[in-house]
């Protein structure tokens, strides 16, 4: 099975979406076919979407073991969270 197509991670920005979201993965021989396949598999070809594909091997992920080191210190210090500022109505999508 050495000839199996590599795995690609797929990120899609929907018509009214602001950011690309990870939607899943698929196998394809190269980036162009990965984009084509992503259209079929994940978007049903809705118009106005943007697709990113990236080789799964090119993604570096944080280790679950590092979770406490990375995220916990701020949890106990509320002053680190900018939650005390009322946001004006006009500011959207923040």
């Amino acid at each position: 099975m050495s000839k199996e197509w590599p795995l690609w991670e797929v990120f899609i920005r929907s018509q009214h979406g602001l950011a690309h979201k990870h939607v899943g993965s698929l196998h394809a021989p190269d980036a162009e076919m990965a984009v084509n396949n992503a259209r079929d598999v994940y978007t049903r070809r809705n118009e106005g979407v943007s697709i990113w594909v990236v080789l799964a091997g090119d993604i570096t992920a944080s280790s679950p073991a590092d979770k406490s080191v990375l995220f916990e210190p701020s949890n106990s210090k509320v002053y680190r969270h900018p939650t005390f500022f009322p946001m004006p109505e006009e500011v959207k999508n923040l």
Partner: protein
Amino acid sequence: MADSNVADPKIEFLLRLADNSLVLSQRLSELCGKGPALEEDIALTNVALDLLGQARFWFAYAGELEGAGRDEDRLAFLRDAHEFRNLLLVEQPNGSYADTLMRQFYFDAWHYLLLEQLLTSSDERIAAIAEKSLKEVRYHLRRSGDLIVRLGDGSELSHSMMQRAADDLWMFTDEMFQADAVEQAMAAQGVMPELGTLRTPWINHVAEIFREATLVLPPLDAWMQKGGKQGRHGESLGYLLAEMQFLPRAYPDAVW
């Protein structure tokens, strides 16, 4: 118009469009679950669904014009092979994946050119359906052209399979450009383009993709098969219809 068997050339023309899409959709559906890769399988089935949707639009309009109470289901399921008006190309068996892709590419390239011209049809309903369909067919053509290049310019085996498919299916391509009384009447009314004018752009596009795919274009003066549009089909269409129409024929009153 000269042909007295042709009741209304527009209905006849719509049935040709509908039958092309329906029969090719049925062929592609046969491959559901059998694609060479999961992603290919989904893509093929998507194309089949696109074509089925197009067939429904054309059938619905043909049925309305006919005014004889035949809806899309009756037109699809209760006509026999000699009443089908599809091109011989689309009824060809799936064969190998190379055959399937080549059939698709030959058809997509023509389908795209035709629909593009139908956008300016004097019949607004036809122009509207063409516009909807063209979005899908643009993608079909991009996909099939891309795969022709990949496999034609792939391994030695894939190259030879693609070349053989190109040669085998070639004789069914000229029918796409041969206008009979129906198409002449439609062109005269501005409903559709002169079919013959699609030939050069079609050959140019196919030649360009073949060059990239390192495939040899079959001889332009080769012997060509025809008859599908007039209801004279190959043997395989009967089997295709027998399978497709079994249920509605066995249970004519069934509602689904």
